[in-house]
């Protein structure tokens, strides 16, 4: 399978601070990829690098086999909805569709107007007067109607109420079925990503902590509870992600490819949310040592 996004040692610095450092990714096509991490972790920076809104300070990035924004043809293959779904507040919904038609050779006017109608948006309404959910849907329509191969969404549902959130994801999944899209969406709400993603990237403190297919992550991460023990004494192939101790008991989240034979441990599966939280709660020192990227 070809990769939709390939990054090698990618980094971006603002004055003194590195917003993204040493990012190496190989995201396969045909998947819905979740990019999760706390605020300020570098999710927006990574997405902006992928669409050419930012230039890398270090390393390289390739999207659909080409440099981001290298040409109008490359721009046409990638759809993007930035955080808070920016729209021209003075332009109407219909004006936005005209904008899309004039600026995108691959524009599918039928898809666009069908979607607007199904969503119940008034074409003559100014975008500034729309609700947050409606603006997000308009922005998604603009990105989908240019018929991209890859869709990138920056926290698309963060400011939406639960109903708008559900409707947005429903529409997005239908479009994935219709157009055979690959999607990368970022969020700090793991619960939403859990439903729709089959590939996960965890970004904390400007670094990739773990990346891989959700099923593989579920299969290789375990919760171990047992008598109090020093995590450093675990076997080499068991990587401790997070540890907590009481005076008698130790609870560990570990990543390992091999089965766990030690009978002292009670082994339980780790839910996706707990997995992400374990990576997010690592100390700063540990966070700078990223786990190897998990590939399939």
């Amino acid at each position, binding site marked *: 399978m070809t990769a939709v996004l390939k990054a090698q040692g990618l980094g971006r610095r603002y004055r003194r601070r590195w917003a993204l450092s040493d990012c190496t990714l190989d995201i396969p096509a045909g998947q819905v990829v979740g990019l999760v991490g706390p605020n300020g972790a570098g999710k927006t920076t990574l997405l*902006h690098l992928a*669409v*050419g*809104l*930012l*230039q890398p300070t270090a390393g390289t990035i390739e999207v659909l086999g080409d440099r981001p*924004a290298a*040409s*109008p*043809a490359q*721009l*046409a293959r*990638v*759809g*993007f909805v*930035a955080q*808070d779904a*920016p*729209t*021209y*507040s003075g*332009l109407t919904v219909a*004006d936005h569709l*005209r*904008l*899309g038609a*004039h*600026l*995108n*050779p*691959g524009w599918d006017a039928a898809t666009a107007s069908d979607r607007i109608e199904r969503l119940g948006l008034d074409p003559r309404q100014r975008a500034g007067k729309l609700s947050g959910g409606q603006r997000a849907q308009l*922005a998604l329509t*603009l990105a989908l109607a*240019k018929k991209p191969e890859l869709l990138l969404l920056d926290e698309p549902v963060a400011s939406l109420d639960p109903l708008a959130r559900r409707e947005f994801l429903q529409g997005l999944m239908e479009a994935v079925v219709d157009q055979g899209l690959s999607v990368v969406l970022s969020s700090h709400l793991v619960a939403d990503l859990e439903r729709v993603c089959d590939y996960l990237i965890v970004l904390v403190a400007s670094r990739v902590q773990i990346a891989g297919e959700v099923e593989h992550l579920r299969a290789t991460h375990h919760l171990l509870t047992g008598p109090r023990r020093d995590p450093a004494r675990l076997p080499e192939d068991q990587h401790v992600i997070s540890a907590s101790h009481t005076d008698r008991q130790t609870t560990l989240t570990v990543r390992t490819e091999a089965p766990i034979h030690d009978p002292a441990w009670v082994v339980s599966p780790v839910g996706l949310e707990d997995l992400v939280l374990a990576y997010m709660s690592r100390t700063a020192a540990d966070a700078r040592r990223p786990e190897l990227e998990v590939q399939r």
Partner: protein
Amino acid sequence: MIWLTWRQFRAQTVAAAGLLALLAIAFAVTGPQLAHLYDTTVATCHAQHDCQNAINAFQSRDSFLQSLVRLLMLAAPALIGIFWGAPLIAHELEAGTQRLAWVQSVTRFRWLAVKLGLAGLASMAAAGLLSLMVTWWSGPFDRIGAGRMDPSIFSERGIVPVGYAAFAFALGVTAGLLIRRTVPAMAATLAVFAAVVSGFAGKVRFHLIPPLHLTSPLNMSWVTQTGIGGPAGPNSLLVNITPNVPGAWIGSSSVTTAAGSTSLGPPPSGCGENSTYRACTAAIGRLHLRQVLVYQPGSRFWALQWYETAIYLALALALAGFCVWWVRRRVS
């Protein structure tokens, strides 16, 4: 991209067109009457020996419109820079809509080039139309005194306003690009524009073509002040003149002796403490002094206009080129 530029500029374009139309109507109503009045009173005033009255009466006609025109021509290019140029990029960056515009299937180069080209041409056309109307309507007024060679009038006639508008527009876009906020960019545009334009008009314009020097016998009707003292020394004769060469722009004038020295020597005997003004003037006349004028003749009006416009257009083009380069390399 052309459609989008038009759509985003629609309101400003319509407002400008409306303003120009209103002005055209006002001019059409008053213009012919002014020309007629000039032809019948001021043009023939020499024969009736009451030129000053005729001129005063004429210049007080349509005074509101005159003031409005002066204000408009003074402000128009700056306003174009502030309201058309400064928001062009700054507004997008402030609202974050560049994150929508720059991920459509157009390169940043094309996005900016079309916007700059269309809005820049519109600015120049608006300024050109305005200047055309004003130059036509002000024709009679400009035939009085130094007329259109007068530095403040020169900036408001002919094709120079087109150059100003292009420069102000490009300056506004650059300010908006670098400052990234609309209101501060507007302020910066106004400040820089005013400084450049006044500096140029004051220091550079007069020397665009080497001025003419004319040395001739002192014209006594031009003498406005006589006295003792001044830069040549406390005991030296001082004679100041206010030259009146119709249609010309006098850069400087001085009074010299027949040998060419500005030090006129001691005052003649007819200019003592108790002498009359007429006696002193007559005594000065017998000194055979000369006057030296450094000036630009009225015939050079269009040459100076073209040079100045070309310079401002070149500045505008350079700024536009910088903007295109900067937007592609640096902005995010």
